[in-house]
């Protein structure tokens, strides 16, 4: 069964993806806490280790999110959230966007779209493209859900 591409459906897919990528990122970022186990709290060495762990955790958190969105979108056009909601991202030729276009959409495009309080996302409220779609020349289409 095909569905209509609506803002709500896209938002639902995005929230599922953010939850998944967040859990995945947390399980990797959590590994940064391992070296703290052998240090005594309150010491200077502990504080320095906490600072290093925090920087590493933020970096890993960002990298996992970028990898999640760019790899899934680039190679198949569907993130897990879009698969569940029956949506897909396509390049101008109708196929999967490929890694370069996906990086443009998922990293540069999403930063651009979210900067003015998410205005670039709300651009898609009428059922059209968001700024990240415009930048990467991609479209979101509905596909057979096949569940």
């Amino acid at each position, binding site marked *: 069964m095909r569905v209509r591409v609506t803002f709500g459906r896209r938002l639902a897919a995005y929230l599922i993806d953010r939850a998944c990528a967040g859990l995945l990122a947390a399980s990797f970022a959590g590994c940064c*806490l*391992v070296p703290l186990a052998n240090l005594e709290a309150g010491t200077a060495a502990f504080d320095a280790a906490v600072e290093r762990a925090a920087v590493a955790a933020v970096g*890993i958190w960002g990298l996992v999110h970028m990898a999640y969105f760019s790899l899934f979108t680039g190679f198949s056009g569907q993130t*897990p959230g879009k698969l569940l909601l029956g949506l897909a991202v396509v390049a101008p030729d109708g196929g999967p966007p490929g890694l370069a276009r996906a990086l443009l959409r998922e990293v540069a495009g999403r930063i651009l779209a979210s900067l003015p309080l998410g205005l670039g996302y709300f651009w898609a409220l009428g059922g059209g493209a968001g700024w990240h779609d415009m930048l990467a020349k991609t479209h979101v289409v509905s596909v057979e*859900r*096949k569940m």
Partner: protein
Amino acid sequence: MEYAGFGRRLGAALLDALIIGMATGFLQLLAPDSSAVYALGTLGSVLYYVLFVGLRGQTPGKMALGVKVLGPDGGPPGAVRAFVREVIGKFFSALVLCLGYLWMLWDPKRQCWHDKLAGTVVVRAEAVPSGQDASARAPVL
């Protein structure tokens, strides 16, 4: 096509857990209390399940026990669907006292919750090549 039974699927899951457990345990022997080793173990486990199931429909444990995961079109499910099954789906299956895992016991298509979410079924596959097949493939001297 015959759906795979509970014992066979449980056996395959235990075998996979053993493989993953031994590999990550070995890594931790090499470098105890290292962040990188924990992260590598997590990454390795996710890739093991998602890539084996997604691209082949079978993890090594499933190959040994002769079971196979199929997507809605009868082929391997693909990496996205495998991620939905292995990471998101199994999280929910385990959430309520593993009720989602037991669901296949009374489900007509033998689907667990993670199968239903990802649109997959698990069927019997030939476990190891039979003697006849193996001899047919042996080089002729």
